[in-house]
């Protein structure tokens, strides 16, 4: 092989020998890399992509965006939580008083309680409904499945404000919902849905269920379609009924999709603002539909208590972060078990 000596020669400058352990420490490799000849060729020491600092240039655009629109407002907001400020004149330092107020003042704790109830409507119920429907639809050989999938997913696509206005109209005392109840002879069941403190939050929750079920259904259908048919058949051979099939074969395969659905819907529930703001302005009857994000808005822009408002926002952020971490831990644990 006439060419071999040349190759060996070139490699010789950069690599001790092909069998030698790869050098991973940059500092050891530098003396050799400094020779001009080897600089012209890509360095063979360490993984490709040297020098490392180039990586920062790649992430710079995204980082600038992130820093400007997410990191900076978050830090600025965190700084504001230590002040009592009306948004116009000079603020005054109050230390941890705002946090203390959020944790102890019932007026500030109530909205978080309402979010928890909304989590049930926005997240738990859609996931259960989504699982049930997905399990049923997988078994059925329906014609026009794409049509049904589209229609069921439609609520996710419509802007939340439009959803709120449409449902606000449906919930009117003389609106379609009450009309329907009257036509069915269920006059006693008619309510002032959005004006009654006992019903306003539930009404908002039902809209959330309507919006979230489609998303969960689509996610779970996609997840179930990845399960190989053989698994179902072997379960059937072992004597499993339809429900057992779903619980033992389908459900474990959906762990990833469950995590995604849970994360998206729970965050939607905790973050919800437009639905509440448009359907029940003013925080709802007797404040029964005020949620943390509405409190943030009201205190910052109407009441002029920016410090408290931002504290509520930071606490909400922390809660959402914990929830997301919790869900991901749950999903990861599933992976480890399977391995």
């Amino acid at each position, binding site marked *: 092989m006439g060419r071999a000596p040349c190759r060996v020669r070139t490699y010789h400058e950069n690599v001790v020998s092909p069998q030698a352990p790869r050098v991973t420490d940059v500092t050891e490799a530098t003396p050799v890399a400094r020779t001009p000849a080897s600089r012209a060729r890509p360095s063979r020491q360490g993984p490709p992509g040297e020098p490392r600092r180039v990586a920062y240039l790649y992430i710079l655009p995204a980082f600038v965006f992130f820093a400007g629109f997410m990191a900076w407002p978050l830090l600025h907001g965190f700084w504001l939580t230590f002040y009592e400020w009306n948004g116009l004149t000079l603020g005054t330092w109050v230390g941890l008083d705002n946090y203390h107020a959020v944790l102890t003042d019932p007026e500030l704790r109530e909205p978080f309680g309402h979010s928890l109830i909304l989590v049930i409507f926005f997240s738990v119920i859609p996931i259960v409904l989504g699982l049930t429907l997905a399990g049923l639809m997988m078994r059925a050989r329906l014609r026009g499945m794409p049509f049904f999938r589209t229609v069921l997913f439609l609520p996710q696509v419509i802007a939340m404000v439009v959803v709120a206005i449409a449902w606000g109209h449906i919930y009117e005392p003389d609106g379609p919902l009450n009309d329907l109840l009257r036509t069915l002879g269920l006059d006693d069941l008619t309510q002032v849905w959005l*004006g009654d403190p006992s019903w306003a939050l539930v009404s908002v929750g039902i809209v959330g269920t309507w919006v979230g079920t489609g998303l969960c259904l689509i996610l779970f259908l996609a997840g179930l379609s990845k399960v190989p048919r053989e698994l179902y058949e072997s379960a059937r051979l072992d004597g499993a009924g339809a429900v057992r099939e779903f619980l033992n074969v389908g459900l474990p395969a959906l762990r990833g999709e469950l995590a995604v659905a849970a994360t998206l819907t729970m965050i939607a529930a905790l973050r919800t603002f437009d639905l509440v703001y448009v359907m029940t302005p003013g925080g709802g*009857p*007797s404040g029964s539909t005020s949620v943390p994000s509405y409190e943030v808005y009201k205190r910052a822009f109407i009441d002029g208590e920016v410090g408290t408002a931002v504290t509520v926002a930071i606490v909400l952020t922390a809660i959402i972060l914990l929830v997301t971490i919790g869900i991901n831990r749950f999903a990861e644990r599933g992976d480890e078990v399977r391995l």
Partner: protein
Amino acid sequence: MIQRRSIIGPRRRSAMRATVAAFAVTALALAACAPGEDSDGGEEAAPSDIETNVADMGDITLTVWDQQVRGGQAESIEALNAAFEEEYPNVTIDRVSRSFEDLQRVLRLAIQDDEAPDVVQANNNRSQMGAFVEAGLLRSLDGYADVYGWKDRYPESILAHSSYSDDGAVFGEGNLYGLPQTGELIGVWYNKAKLQQLGIEPPQSLADFEAALQAAKDAGELPIQFGNKDPWPGIHTFGFIQNMFADREEIRAFGYGNPGGDWTDEANTQAADELQSWVDAGYFTSGFNGIDYDPSWQDFANGEGVFLISGSWLLADLRDAMGDNVGFMLPPVGETGELTVTGATGLPFAVPTEGDNADAAAAYIDFITSPEAMQTLTEAGELPVVETDQQQVSGTQAEVFEAWGTAGSEGALVPYLDWGTPDAYTVISTGVQAFMGGDESTEELLGTFEEDYSSFVSENSGG
């Protein structure tokens, strides 16, 4: 947990530590400075420095933020803007109009901006105009008032509604910060045909009004059309009844946030109880807490409801929908024996400090409040704040003008209840909503009002 070998070399780790440390130091340094700015009061233009000749000001774009979205209001402001641009071709008016609620919410941020609008309509209450004056964000219009002669045309009592002391502490006297175009008062709109059918005359006293309500109820009509989902109309309804029980001075104390009132006294308790009895008797639209304001007066215009307790600002829209079938009357005289009417002015036009063209802005304000402008307003179905006796009106509009004239001449006007304290708007609107929904007792309702009012008064005067 899987052990991860750190991919960050020692040099990089120490660089990161240094950055974090730098961050922390900056954060601590920032802790020393507080957010917001100290104000040194709004700037005041001396009369001698004021330029009134708009034609000489060069090419300007005047940004005007108003809340004239309803029929007559929109018509009149557009006509006036067109006339202004015609007279001064060097000025272009950039008009941004929003509903009352929307404008309230965005104004706070907008006037702090370096590129604030030149003219804004700011609500006279303490949480808006009062707070802005305190922060030095509005220009004092005293100099302009002298030059343009506003003090000669507008009575003192009207100008008082837009006046605050330098620091925003005293409401009702001090520098002038805004000039209103229209007057407004809360009265009773009624469906003339229905009242005739019931065989009742427009009621003048509380007893007559209650009898009329009961008669309407008995005849299967809806006595009072009402929608309180976005709860501000409740403030007016409560005030309407309160005016029949509490005396004018006390209501003025509440409305201006001045000492001298007690929400828990006999008169106010009676007023709250009266409102509760009306709700219990079913005089209001069923499910009113689920109906918004606009749908409710639109329902009234479509013939649902005998009475509508709301403001004179609905004149143009109701007149368009109901023609001569709609009537307007002053609130009935109650237990106090004297007429008391909630009313003041439309939202005044103010000039933000951060706006660029102050002189042009003032000239514009003068233009839209001139005697000719008052005529334009009348023609569009509005109630001009001054010179009402010089206008040619008929029908329902004449009824509104007459009511305004009577209220003014008898000194019966009292301010809106939500003007008094920075939190009054939220406290009173949500309180009345809960109260009328049956969720709060009279004691609880008046208790929260008194707490908000008295804590503000003591802070403001003593502190």
